[in-house]
């Protein structure tokens, strides 16, 4: 068995990198530094928890903001998925998360009554490379930001001559391989000792979303902006797509939008685990269920 690996902490979770090749310690250390620096840069721009981040800035003040080069795909995706979910997938959920107590300090204390959000289009005019913010509201790019960072780091590996790898960011992953199929257990959200099935991916990403761990009071980290509640009829969702950003964002969206609506705009396979342990999945989701 060849292969090498390393990990580091970023975006509040463990990032594990596995390689088919047997790299030297020195080379591993070099790659690790390149990747962890990139992750740090990314967080300093896109985290709503960093006071001087771009996301914090556009959350606080109206006006026109210049966007960095690497933001185009992410902003395009947010505005596009926003349309295909009838406005329900929105970065303005940051306002709700914050009001509900999922804030910088992790206070989990609800700050007053949750209110309905205005439409994304009416709050911000986006045309890369600028965004014109008309009303300052708290943004959060957490629903697809981690997936996008997975894609970026994958690209960075390829630019450094590494074509076979697996990036696992706390259960959301992207795998590239000429030969190996990756067997990914789908965690039972009610019993972490168990899996409810095994998905097999190759040169794809699989991302999962679940309310089970990040829970406080009546809330978890996913909100339906219409009901102002965290959905409870779905326990977990998994999405397989070519890009981790797409898989990540859609996994969240399946909690409040119909797969058929999202399918109109994106190419992906999905599996939804309902709270009664029934499963709904697309025809080609590559899974064996237990």
């Amino acid at each position, binding site marked *: 068995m060849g292969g090498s690996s390393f990990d580091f902490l970023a975006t509040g979770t463990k990032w594990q990198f596995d390689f088919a090749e047997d790299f030297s310690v020195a080379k591993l250390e070099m790659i690790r530094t390149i990747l962890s620096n990139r992750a740090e840069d990314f967080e300093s721009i896109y985290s709503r928890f960093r006071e001087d981040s771009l996301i914090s800035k556009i959350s606080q003040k109206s006006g026109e903001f210049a966007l960095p080069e690497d933001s185009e795909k992410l902003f395009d995706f947010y505005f596009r998925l926003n349309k295909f979910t009838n406005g329900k997938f929105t970065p303005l959920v940051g306002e709700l998360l914050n009001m509900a107590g999922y804030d910088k300090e992790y206070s989990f204390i609800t700050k007053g009554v949750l209110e309905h959000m205005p439409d994304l289009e009416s709050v911000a005019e986006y045309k890369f490379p600028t965004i014109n913010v008309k009303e300052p509201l708290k943004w959060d790019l957490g629903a697809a930001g981690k997936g996008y960072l997975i894609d970026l780091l994958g690209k960075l590996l390829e630019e450094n001559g590494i074509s076979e790898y697996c990036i696992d960011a706390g259960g959301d992953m992207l795998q590239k391989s000429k030969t190996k199929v990756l067997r990914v257990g789908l965690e039972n959200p009610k019993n972490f000792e168990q899996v409810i099935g095994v998905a097999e991916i190759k040169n794809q990403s699989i991302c999962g979303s679940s309310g*089970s761990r990040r829970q406080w009071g009546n809330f978890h980290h996913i909100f339906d902006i219409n009901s102002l509640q965290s959905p409870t009829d779905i326990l977990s969702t998994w999405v397989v797509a070519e890009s981790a950003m797409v898989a990540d964002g859609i996994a969240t969206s399946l909690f409040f939008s119909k797969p058929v609506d999202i399918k109109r705009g994106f190419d992906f396979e999905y599996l939804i685990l309902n709270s009664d342990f029934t499963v709904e999945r697309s025809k080609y989701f590559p899974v064996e269920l237990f």
Partner: protein
Amino acid sequence: MEESIDSKVEVKTEGSQNKILPFVLIVVLLIGIGIFALRKPSKEEVLEMGKGEEQSAKVTMTVTPAIIANYKDGKYVATGNYTSPAGDESVEVKITLKSNVITEAEVISKATKPKSITMQNLFIGGFMEMVVGKNINEVKLDKVSGSSLTSKGFNDAIEKIKTVAKV
């Protein structure tokens, strides 16, 4: 326009099975539940069919997983034939049995008449699977995807709150 099922069911198996007959009955039952209009609306999802005079039947879409005692693990394929108001039709059901539980099921429409196609697709689309889970150490895995490895800061904070809440 009651559709009635006849007893012509061909079963092919992949693997050596001998106690097939009772199982066939269940397959037939599954097909029956799905395709034919149930007059009783169940507590599960009920879809209203076309509002035309001809067809106003309600079709229940949910099939609960069947648990059968003592059958050999394996893949089973069965073709169910039935007579619809439009003529003879069939539907193919592929099922994987593991430890007496149907772990996978696929229903393939063999219908040729337009109305039967609509009816069968309704059934196929609404077929529900149920999962029970399996211990991680019983399954060969490279990775696990879920929420157990979520933000450490978040988990620490929750733990803190739990401690405070206990007092």
